[in-house]
């Protein structure tokens, strides 16, 4: 075989090899995210803890010491309480975390995001939240039966008025 056709053949081989590498790694190997009988529990919401100390009414004497343009009836410290959240599934603790309020003055709200694989099917879900240093234990609770289909997301959110909101259950 003369040199030129051989060279073309080798070039074709190299291009084919290059494209084979590109084609294979563009999609393979695939990754497994969930088993067939698994679902996902996601807890995602933002919440600001209660103020560490309640507002205090200033006395007349204290008010008199303040400049006229800065006289407020109440003194409200900015610092907020850390937020503790716990999720139990069928009695087992799945997630428990205490989040410190962000910000220089620890006065910000916390963002909660947690996601975990759980077995699909029927479960007993118990949620608890503490957002005040002045209270012991959870000052907000929710406990209910849930049923989750495979590959679905059981989403726990939070509403300031009604408390925990669970969506995605069958």
């Amino acid at each position: 075989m003369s040199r030129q056709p051989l060279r073309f053949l080798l070039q074709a081989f190299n291009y084919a090899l290059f494209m084979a590498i590109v084609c294979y790694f563009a999609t393979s190997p695939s990754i497994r995210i969930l088993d067939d009988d698994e679902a996902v529990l996601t807890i995602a919401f933002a919440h600001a803890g209660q103020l560490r100390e309640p507002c205090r009414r200033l006395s007349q004497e204290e008010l008199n010491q303040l400049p006229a343009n800065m006289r407020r009836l109440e003194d409200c410290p900015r610092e907020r309480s850390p937020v503790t959240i716990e999720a139990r599934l069928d009695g087992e603790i799945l997630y428990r975390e205490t989040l410190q309020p962000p910000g220089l003055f620890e006065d910000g709200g916390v963002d909660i995001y947690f996601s975990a694989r759980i077995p699909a099917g029927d479960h007993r879900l118990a949620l608890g939240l503490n957002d005040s240093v002045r209270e012991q234990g959870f000052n907000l609770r929710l406990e209910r039966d849930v049923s989750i289909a495979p590959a679905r997301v059981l989403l726990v959110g939070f509403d300031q008025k009604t408390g925990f909101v669970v969506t995605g259950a069958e």
Partner: protein
Amino acid sequence: MRVNPVKRAYLALESWFNLSFGTDWNPLYHLGTLSFFLFWIILVTGIYLFIPFHASLEGAYASVEWMTHEQWYLAGVMRSLHRYASDAVVVTILLHLFKEFASGRYRGFRWFSWFTGVPTLWMVVTLGITGYWLVWDELAQYIAIGSARLLDALPIFSGAMTRNFVSGGMNDRFFILIEFLHLLGQPLLLVFLLWLHVKRLSNVNIHPPRGLAVGTLLALVALSLWAPAVSQGPADLESVPRALQIDWFYLNVYPLLEVWPPQQIWMLTTGITVLLMLLPWLPPKKKEPVAVVDLEHCNGCGICFEDCPFDAITVQARTDGARYEQEVVVDPDLCGSCGICAGACPASNPFRSARDTLETGIDMPQQPVDDMRRQTREAVAALSGDEKIVVYGCAHGLDVDRVARADTAGVRLICSGMLPPTLVEYALKQGADGVMVVGCRENDCYYRFGNRWLKARFAGERKPTLRARAERQRVCVHGAAETDLRAVERDLERFRARLALLRAEREEWVAS
């Protein structure tokens, strides 16, 4: 001479491609230009895809499906070309990185190109990630949540980003932001980084040889027709895909999120990035002496300015009051110490001031032109035999001392491009029957243009030219790496035979 295993592996790959493509089309010699060519494909196909694409949560997936299945013959092929060219460019960039590392072309004065190349690679990767995001299929959902988790782990974000990707949290405005990033923000930044990456080079070429470009395009089209790029199921934030086909060229970090917290992934990627960027100084390379201009012998012709591969020479108005209008200045920070400028200077003529020290307009302190002339004279004087050959070799290719014998002497140069053509003439005049120049492998000069300029000078296409009085049949140029001893010896043997034939013809002519 010992060649390290990484370089040996690279040279073997290079030899294979030289065998397949020849030195003109060898993809390893055009990895930069090939990457630019792939960017052109990505740009053109991207502009076409932008027209039918609907940038909204509701419309994105459907519009991409329409392109893929309804107008498969055009938009579908464009989509596949867009994706596969994007994947191919990661391969060419990684090979480019490997090549420069293996051949030691990332340290010393080259630090800037290497240093700026690392963020360029990351920019390409992030551009690919936002591209996958736009399809808004299950894979897009997976990388959107993964990216948000990674970003939320950084102290500059509040931790709220991931919540965008729970049911009902995502909106069209966020989607349009990603589209803006992918279509304008990131490409502009990439162009800026690419400009920065090649800023310290002269004669920058961004076009690969036509044959290589056509071959690559045909291969990509064939792949696009054979295995069209398709979407996975539509994104649904209320469910999680069980399995995904991911693009490992761009999304290789995401599966790590299943096993590591985001902070550890940042530590890993940042660590790799910092290590790569610091490689040029691990350990620091000793700075070689740079080119020195001698205004007494410089007439400001500017040939060295034209030939400098690293943009280290500038031309400015004369400062010494001489009758010439211009002079050249060397920027020591940019100079690669290759000596190509010394070979370009018309004053580097060994026939000038034959008895005194040969001084030239621009010279290398570590191997002045006068030294080259002395080495040539001594080498020729020591030769014996019927065909006396002087072999000039560059310091980054084959060690020419390995081919030395009674009738063959080697003279080492910093770069083959620093050989003034008149020195070849000088060697023949001193009594050599032939001159061979062994530079780096053809089209792969360590200093970019050494062997190319040398050939052009010998062919009379570039100043200073090899004059007609030097018989062309007695001059031979060979490109060789450190491992190419046999090939050089073979070429040398053929050269000897040619010189012997010339000698026989001359003797016959004299006798007649």
